[in-house]
């Protein structure tokens, strides 16, 4: 009888728990969906887990993942629907979609957490409500340059970037940082979807390039790495978050051996609580191995965890968590959010001046078909100096 009472209480409390909607809009199909589909699964699974484990402070968070097909108009429509419904925060995806929505985000005051770590998202104007889950691409690239400068002082470096704001944004900061580090950026090459990079690589070799730093997506990086190996070049490759990871290993195979990669997330095979958590959730929600191995799966989880934590804290403070007042309350919590969900190598901390959640990252190296960490969690020493001048 007592058990029945508890069961009835649980069912009733679930049924009468206040529902708060949280939408993610990203590419489950279309360009970059190789990352987006795993990111979406991460959002969905963390949301289910948080509801089931009572991590939502008595609220029921209804997470909805929308496939915007990497189409900005679809992102805008989804954002409008979330706004109309009274959602207190929004989980976004692409660089273009986020940049396009910035004026509207600023006007309506909706907390927005994109999957794009583009520095322009949090640079003024219209950036008050945008929060990056981890360090920006610009900081990642500078961290790679710092690593290279330590490994080979005075090295000659080429940047291979995606031909878009996503790819180009770190270039000016990287040039400044290279000067400070005493290394030389001999060329900046834009590349996407090329089938053969022989000519580019030969040119790099003629210029004495020793390292190529990629701010790109894994596909073209894999092609270039394989071409470099075929040509027998002794150039080392270093990749920012979306340019490397397990996706690159899958695409480049043996050629990826020795590639350096920087990210704030754990790999699922690491001996760390964050990695065990990702595996646990993957198993719990019956995700296939490729989902659990993907770095985009914990990335989606982290974005959902940040939004849910801010909503939970706003609710715990007795504030409304839907509509105009809900957006305001969640934003106020975001500005003082400090917690460690354990999904990345550092805690999530935001403030009025700091809109980057996890400020730390690690350098990995591909060894034996896996990326293994070769550094402790660290922050870039130069990024703030070259980007903000402080």
């Amino acid at each position, binding site marked *: 009888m007592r058990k029945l009472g508890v069961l009835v209480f649980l069912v009733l409390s679930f049924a009468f728990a206040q529902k708060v909607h949280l939408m993610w809009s990203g590419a489950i199909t*279309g360009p970059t969906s190789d990352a987006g589909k795993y990111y979406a699964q991460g959002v969905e699974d963390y949301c289910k887990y948080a509801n089931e484990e009572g991590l939502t402070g008595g609220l029921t968070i209804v997470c909805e993942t929308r496939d915007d097909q990497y189409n900005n108009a679809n992102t805008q*429509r989804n954002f*409008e629907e979330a*706004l*109309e419904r009274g959602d207190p925060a929004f989980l976004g995806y692409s660089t273009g979609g986020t940049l396009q929505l910035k*004026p509207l985000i600023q006007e309506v005051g909706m907390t927005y957490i994109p999957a794009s770590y583009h520095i322009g998202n949090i640079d003024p104007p*219209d950036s008050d409500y945008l929060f990056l889950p981890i360090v920006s691409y610009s900081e990642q690239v500078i961290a790679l340059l710092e690593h290279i400068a330590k490994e080979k002082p005075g090295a000659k470096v080429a940047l291979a970037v995606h031909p878009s*704001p996503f790819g*180009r944004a770190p270039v000016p900061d990287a040039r400044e940082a290279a000067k400070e580090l005493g290394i030389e950026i001999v060329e900046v090459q834009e590349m996407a979807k090329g089938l053969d990079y022989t000519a580019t690589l030969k040119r790099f070799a003629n210029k004495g390039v020793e390292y190529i730093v990629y701010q790109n997506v894994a596909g073209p990086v894999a092609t270039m790495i394989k071409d470099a190996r075929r040509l027998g070049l002794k150039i080392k490759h270093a990749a920012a978050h979306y340019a490397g990871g397990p996706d690159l290993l899958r695409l480049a195979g043996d050629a990826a051996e020795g590639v350096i990669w920087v990210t704030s997330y754990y790999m699922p095979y690491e001996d760390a609580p964050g990695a065990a958590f990702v595996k646990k959730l993957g198993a719990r929600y019956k*995700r296939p191995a490729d989902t659990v191995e993907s770095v985009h799966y914990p990335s989606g989880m982290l974005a959902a965890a940040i939004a849910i934590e801010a909503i939970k804290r706003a609710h715990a403070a007795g504030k409304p968590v839907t509509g105009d007042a809900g957006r305001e309350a969640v934003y106020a919590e975001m500005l003082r959010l400090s917690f460690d969900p354990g999904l990345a190598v550092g805690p999530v901390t935001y403030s009025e001046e700091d809109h980057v959640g996890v400020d730390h990252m690690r350098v990995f190296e591909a060894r034996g078909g896996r990326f293994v960490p070769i550094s402790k969690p660290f922050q870039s020493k130069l990024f703030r100096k070259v980007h903000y001048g402080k």
Partner: protein
Amino acid sequence: MRNPWAQTGNYRTDYRQDTAIFATYLEMLSLWAFLAVLLALPLFLSRPQMFVLDLILVYALAVLGLNITTGYAGLINIGQAAFVGVGAYTAALLAPSLPFWLTVPIGGLAAAVAGGIVGIPSLRIKHLYLAIATLAFQIIFEWTVGHSTILKQGGAIPLPRVEFWDYRVGYKNHYYFWYYVILLVVVVLAFAFRNLLRTRFGRALVAVRDNDRAADAMGMHPGLTKIFAFALGGFYAGVAGALYAYLSRAVVIEDYMLPVSIKFLAMAIVGGLGSLVGSFLGPAFLVLLDLNMEDLANWLKSLGLSYAGVDIASAMRPLTFGLVIVLFLIFEPRGLANGWRLVRNFFRNWPFKY
């Protein structure tokens, strides 16, 4: 008599009557009634729904332009998104200093100039080769934007909120305000499109499309006609781009890239090449199909009708888009406009129905 409101015979006695747009006053009345419905539509739609409606109308403008270049003049254009982009970037650059009712037509004119320049190769080449030339323009446009600091290298150029007399546009009335602006522009430009074929310039487009040597022999200038087609098609696209820039409140290169050009072509084909009605039916059909497929995909996903690693529900949207194009090309190359023609003919008394 069956359908007494419909046309009962051919009573035209001169050329002016022959080129009349409406056969009966009832046809004219039906258009006015339709416009009245369009004017009242915002009373019943939410903001996200209004955005979809605005989007369909903007796409329709771009497809109207494509139907002038490709539908009327037969010049395959796979760079329409770039023309839309020229209009959008022009509007975005001028928006801080000029009112929208000036930036929108200037955006159209800038795209018309670009169209005239892109049309120059059509003096020497045609068919697939010309299509490649328009593709080259698309690529050059993307490259130029990507390397121009004034255009933020493809990053966002925000547009300010507009004011019209004392009416201030905020986020709550944004899509409603722009709906009426876009609707006005659509009505004017659709009217111009419909009347184009009633002018010698419009008829020259079709003549050059069907046989440029014969058109030349009849005193038309095929080269200038082709350039005119590109310029006019570009103007429509540029106006669409400027309106889209205001609608989305920022210009980002991704909205004007090659896949978008392909989408416009798909809309023109599905709607029916060279057709006014098709220019509206194509965008409406593809946009609404996508929305409905999204709902269906989400529903299938919620039922768990996919197994590990294969997300059938998510694949449905791109799959359906491709399938629809192929099915239209095979079974109804004249597009939805032909369906509309068949429906209208069903209700006609004349000819053959007594």
